[in-house]
């Protein structure tokens, strides 16, 4: 019942939200709902893995062999937890911001949350596809209605990109469905397919799915929608996009591609890995050049996601465990970065690094919190991201799925150095040095903003020092997926 609640609570209350006219009420309503969802998600963590409450199945479209089938395994739990944590954080951090037609804004946010959780818990391919689109459509509206000046252009690009991806995936899903023995969309039936599909078909099927997921993550060269969309979307939406939504791509890769089409994954692993690495270096070098804070964070995210994708293809336990924990960490950390960007922009009206400077004197709390978050972004030990990066790199190095493991590790490792370059550049130029006319009168952040960033910092440190419970959570999932991936 838990997964159903996780979807139903935001879905139904989102629909209710459309009728709320008062902005304040809409804020309170959505914050309350997101906290309730979080409570349910946390309750789910306390249950035994075999508990019946973590599964639900009902008839949906029997004529097509599709069921409303949802389940929470370790990976679904950590990702729905990420979703459930992210939304209240986003609502609190942007609480002081006013939107036009706030009822609709918050309603769409809740709908996208429902869609996201749906994606993470579905174990039926058609249902998965349904939620995939459900998560996307509200975000499309959110960006195109409440976005920046070039929003139409940016969201059009975003829409075309992701829609092409979705279509390719749909084609793949239908093809797989047609080959199942029992004409079913269920994940289990898909898992049984791998021996039924020839190597040649696995080869092109891989690309149908991979391009869909690669666009979502995004992986080079399918990434150009991302900096534009992140830049143009309202920051709350950017947080959803980058913190949670990009995980849909990774999730799809891990759940619906690698174990379902292991032959194709194995065949094209090196090619996909090479794309990931090119993207990591490319995005890191681009990040160094950015003057807009949002674009800097966007490119930094492309580099980090590239590493996660690379680690999936390594097909090792350490690598995949690293990806699991990093999906969570990346979400938390990037949301924190967006919060900082939002606070700066709201107060000073600019995101241009070249126009800022000396903020540490005026806003010391913001500076300290940002430095800690940035350190997590460069994966300093005892922050959460170190655990993920260490495990992923270790998994890539020890991989037997490729003969280029050492080359991959070393070239991808360069991004470790480059990440320090762009993050420290940013800290230096925005916070250190002397104030200028613009930053002269800057003020430190308010207590609710301080509190929410402090909560994130605590999460960063706690997961960084005691990552073991999170690793235990996803262990069984990782074993199951690796077992299916190791088929040759």
């Amino acid at each position, binding site marked *: 019942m838990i997964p159903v609640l996780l979807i139903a609570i935001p879905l139904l209350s989102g629909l209710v939200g459309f009728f709320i006219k008062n902005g304040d009420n809409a804020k309170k309503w959505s914050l309350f709902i997101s906290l309730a969802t979080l409570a349910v998600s946390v309750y789910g963590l306390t249950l035994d893995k075999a508990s019946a409450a973590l599964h639900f199945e009902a008839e949906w479209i029997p004529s097509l062999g599709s069921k409303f089938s949802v389940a929470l395994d370790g990976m679904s739990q950590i990702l729905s937890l990420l979703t459930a944590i992210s939304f209240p954080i986003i609502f609190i951090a942007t609480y002081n911001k006013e939107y036009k037609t706030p009822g609709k804004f918050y309603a769409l946010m809740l709908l996208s949350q429902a869609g996201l959780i749906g994606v993470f818990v579905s174990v039926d391919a058609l249902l998965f596809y349904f939620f995939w689109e459900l998560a996307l459509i509200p975000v499309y509206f959110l960006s195109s209605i409440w976005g920046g000046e070039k929003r139409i252009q940016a969201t059009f*690009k975003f829409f075309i990109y992701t829609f092409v991806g979705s279509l390719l995936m749909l084609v793949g899903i*239908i093809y797989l469905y*047609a080959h199942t023995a029992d004409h079913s969309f269920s994940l289990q039936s898909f898992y049984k397919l791998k021996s039924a599909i020839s190597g040649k078909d696995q080869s092109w099927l891989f690309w149908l799915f991979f391009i869909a997921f690669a666009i979502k993550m995004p992986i080079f060269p399918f990434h150009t929608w991302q900096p534009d969309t992140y830049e143009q979307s309202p920051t709350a939406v950017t947080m959803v996009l980058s913190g949670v939504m990009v995980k849909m791509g990774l999730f799809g890769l891990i759940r619906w591609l690698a174990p379902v089409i292991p032959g194709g994954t194995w065949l094209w692993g090196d090619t996909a890995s090479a794309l990931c690495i090119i993207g990591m270096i490319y995005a890191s070098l681009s990040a160094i050049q950015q003057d807009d804070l949002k674009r800097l964070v966007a490119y930094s995210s492309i580099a980090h996601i590239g590493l996660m994708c690379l680690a999936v293809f390594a097909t090792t336990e350490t690598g995949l465990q690293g990806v699991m924990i990093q999906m969570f960490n990346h979400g938390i950390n990037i949301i924190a970065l967006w919060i900082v960007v939002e606070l700066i922009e709201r107060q000073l009206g600019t995101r241009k690094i070249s126009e800022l400077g000396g903020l540490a004197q005026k806003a010391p709390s913001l500076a300290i919190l940002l430095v800690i978050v940035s350190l997590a972004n460069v994966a300093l030990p005892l922050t959460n991201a170190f655990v993920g990066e260490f495990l992923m*790199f270790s998994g890539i190095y020890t991989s037997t799925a490729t003969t280029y493991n050492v080359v991959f590790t070393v070239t991808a490792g360069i991004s470790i150095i480059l990440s320090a370059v762009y993050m420290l550049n940013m800290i230096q130029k925005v*916070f250190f040095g002397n104030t200028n006319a613009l930053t002269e009168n800057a003020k430190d952040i308010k207590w609710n903003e301080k509190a929410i960033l402090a909560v994130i910092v605590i999460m960063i440190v706690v997961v960084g020092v005691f990552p073991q419970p999170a690793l235990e959570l996803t262990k069984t999932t990782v074993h199951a997926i690796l077992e299916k991936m190791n088929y040759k």
Partner: protein
Amino acid sequence: MSKLVYLVPLFPFIGFLLNGLLRKKLSKSLISIIGCGTVLASFVVSLLIFFEVKDPSFQTVVINLFDFINVGSLKIPFSFQVDQLSILFLLIITGVGFLIHLYSTSYMHDEENQHFARYFAYLNLFVFSMLILILGSNYVIMFVGWEGVGLCSYLLIGYWFKNIEYGNAAKKAFIMNRIGDLGFLIAVFWMISKFGSVNFAEVFSKAPTTSVGVLTGITLLLFVGATGKSAQIPLYTWLPDAMAGPTPVSALIHAATMVTAGIYMIARSNIMYTLAPTTQTVVAIVGLATAIFAASIALKQNDIKKVLAYSTVSQLGYMFLGLGVGAYTGAVFHVMTHAFFKALLFLGAGSVIHAMHEQDIRKMGGLKKFMPITHITFLLACLAIAGIPPFSGFFSKDEILAAAYEKNPIYYVVGVFTALMTAFYMFRLYATTFLGKFRGTSDQEHHLHESPSAITIPLVILAVLAVTAGFLGIPEVFAKDSHWLQHFLSPIFEASTKIQEVHPANAGMELTLMAISVGVAIIGVIYAWSKFSKDPDLQDASGFGKVLANKWYVDELYDAIILKPLNAFGKFLNNVVEKNVIDWMVNGIGRAVQYSSRQIRLLQSGQVGGYVLLMVIGIVILFLVEIFIKK
């Protein structure tokens, strides 16, 4: 007692939290008490543990605090190791660390309250990280401390954050260290894949049965890490820039402790290095090259801290030479004596800067009569670093040079030549600063005074140590079994000692070598004294001297061959590739979509939704045809 070793890093960590979180509420005296008290407490605990470890029957103790990362067969505990090597470093770090904290209470007193607290919070965090680095019983925990000290170094170099140049120096330090850290990390991954573990005990026990090629690779990569942290060629250029930080920070982090982390790491991994002779040769040559190269630059620097910075780089080079020729005890010995005399030199320099508000030695001179304690302690430290017996530097340097001679006489010759330069530039520094006539302004002269006792007490204590510490390692040639340190550390280097060929020491030869190096050092001292004590030549360097004064233009070289091209490449990617290639392709798809929509516009309403619907339906139909009818 050794079970309580977790207290040693815990105290400074608490100090960091208190001073960091309550920085706006605490008074300066309370901040000082927290900052110094926590480190003193760590020192006391370390001392108690030391008495336990000193016992000959002591066995290495590993304390598992909790499981850090357990994935599959990879088990990385958060655990500490107490043995002779770690306790020695613990004592140096907490001991010298405490003195420098004490010194800082006076040196930093003019800072605003909350920045004063911030300073001590960073300093405590540094001590904490350094202790983690030393105590970790596996390479990952060591790496935790390794990057932690790098962070603190970054924060403290950029402590005066309003100054953009200081910020750039801090950034440079962090990034150059990261380059080295990547090498360290890859070595760790290699160990994981080869040994299935990162724990010292397991790695070292499996090392002897591992192929030399693998060990050479791992040790070289670890050494790359060491060149970053311990400022060796080619990653040394951050250290002189790091002098932007407050002087006590230079003393603690950039002289006595952090920069010796690379030496600690190799000493800790000694068995792997002993089994990989190629790496040893590389370490020795890089160390020696750094020693002579940095010493040559120090000859022509005029900033009191820059001279000391290059001197540190050079002395670290000596230590690596020691490691490279298998004189592990000698290297660790030099770490210890260097910690005393170099911290003393930096603190002395700080005392001078504090009084003069000036760092250029050309504008000093004659400080002897104004600052007697600073003067005498500085002189003792100079004698120690120059290698004049019986001061501490003589013993430790001599041990390294003797071992270098055993390995290859050329090492010895270059080492001795470096010793000559060392003696020369140190006494050039000493004479220009303290002897001769005062060359500052009359205003400066009016305010000149000896520093307060919070500054002079650490100077005196360190001077005593710098003078006497050498007696912990009296060469065997003088008296049998007199080398206490060698005896104490023997369990750590036992396995390596067994493998290394032991040449029976030729007493006559050893004494000759010793005499040569002492003679050379004395020549350097006398020459510098004669040249700079009365009427120093203060002209700007010209000719080859100019090359030295400009540090062989290495920064400019790195800028031209690495930074500029990388930046240009980034710009190219961003402005050309992204916009004109990738976006163009994507927009091509967009144009295609728009083109087809124009064609179908006559049939359709023109709404995106309509197209979407049609596309989905079309594809579904196609597939249904493919699947059901073709069958």
